[in-house]
């Protein structure tokens, strides 16, 4: 692995991964996608987020992965499960029971042979409201617009701008307090990936860069607060929030998504 001569906004060096890195990310990313595919079948009214978390952990371990979130800065769970107005880092709980109409994000990061496959998706519990549906659909469209902007020579500002454009068109706000990140053998690496930006600004993308794109869109204002547990981030105005995430790599001629379902 080499490093780019560029540094990200936090002045850290940005790794440039070779073929072995891409292969490692493919395996880890595939398990992340499989885990999310699997968990979808268990989501229904009445199930607790702790039960879903346990199922995620079992699935990842049974398929050769280790949940990288366990032990990360003291986090104790195999997934983050963020329901309705929880923006991110929702802690699975036996007390959090899903109800008809809920929307939730499940974020998993199986570590396979030392590589981190980081991905999250939104799920809808039964029939959800029109606003919730529009928020979920727009967030996915925003993620994919960001992914589509990834190619050698483009910038992280281009990626952020693409995401921002989709969100603004639907009058949703973009959370700024959390960012995507470089990923690989290090869970949270350089570069920071902002989900807003100006075209042409920021780090210029080079083949070998690997990072997550994981926009969080709110139906209300962008402001979030962290609950006393130190993890759970919620919208300050208690508006709905949604997030999707892929781990991607910059190739010689475009982008590879590591966390797509087969």
């Amino acid at each position, binding site marked *: 692995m080499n490093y780019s001569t560029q540094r990200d*906004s*936090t*002045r850290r060096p940005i790794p440039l991964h070779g073929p072995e890195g891409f292969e490692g990310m493919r395996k880890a990313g595939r398990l992340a996608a499989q885990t999310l595919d699997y968990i979808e079948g268990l989501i229904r009214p009445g199930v607790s987020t702790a039960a879903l978390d346990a199922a995620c952990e079992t699935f990842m371990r049974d398929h050769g992965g280790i949940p990288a*979130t366990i032990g*990360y800065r003291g986090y104790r769970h195999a997934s*983050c499960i963020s329901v309705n107005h929880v923006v*991110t*880092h929702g802690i699975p709980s036996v007390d959090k029971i899903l109800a008809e109409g809920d929307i939730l994000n499940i*974020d998993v*990061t199986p570590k396979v042979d030392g590589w981190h496959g*980081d991905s*999250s998706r939104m799920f809808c519990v039964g029939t959800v409201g029109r606003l919730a549906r529009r928020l979920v659909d727009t967030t996915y469209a925003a993620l994919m617009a960001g992914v589509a902007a990834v190619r050698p020579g483009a910038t992280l500002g281009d990626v952020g701008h693409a995401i921002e454009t989709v969100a603004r068109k639907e009058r949703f706000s973009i959370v*700024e*307090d*959390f*960012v*995507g*990140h470089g990923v690989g053998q290090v*869970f*949270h690496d350089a570069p*920071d990936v*902002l989900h*807003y930006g100006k075209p042409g600004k920021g780090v210029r993308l080079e083949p070998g860069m690997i990072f*997550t794109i*994981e926009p*969080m869109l709110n139906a209300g204002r962008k402001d979030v607060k962290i609950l006393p547990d130190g993890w759970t981030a919620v919208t300050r105005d208690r508006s709905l929030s949604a*997030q999707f*995430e892929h781990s991607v790599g910059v190739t010689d001629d475009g982008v590879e998504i590591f966390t797509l379902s087969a």
Partner: protein
Amino acid sequence: MVRTARFDADAFVSAATALVAAGGPDAATLTAIAARVGAPTGSVYHRFPSRAAILAAAWLKAHAAFSARIRPLLEQGAGRAAALALVGWARAEPEAAALLLLHDTESVLADPPPPAQLQAVRDEQQALDRSFSTYMSLVAPTAAGDPAAVARARFRLFDGPIALLRPTLGRPGGVPPYVDDLVAELFAAEFEKVAA
């Protein structure tokens, strides 16, 4: 799993607080705030419309922390405990204390902040005034309208402790223990119905 952005709004507010504490409101320029966080100056504007908005956010954050410690005690009539809590807060949050106690609100907010923040500042001040009124009605119900009694209470609760704190803020070693003793001595036991 997302990473927490290094440059969140709170980081800029904390930087502004530290700069005001060390060098007064004039030291908290946008360039200095951004430099202290290690962020590009443009990233400040992405989160705050103006320098005045950051300074107002810093004042509001400091005052909210101060109020959270003092007001519940005032509303129980526990003046001695409230005055000691003021000292405890200054010891725990020396930069916020320096911002609030060493500089007039007018100088921190010399450039008018956005209207919503200005209203929030007024709301904070009025809430503290109401708590003080509650305190007076509890500990000295017969002294209503007696300017001397009100002045005495204000001195014991605020002006006295703040005068003792001011020389110590920002000094090595922080607020010395004798300040607590001196603040405690400001209170005559018979003045309060409710013991600290």
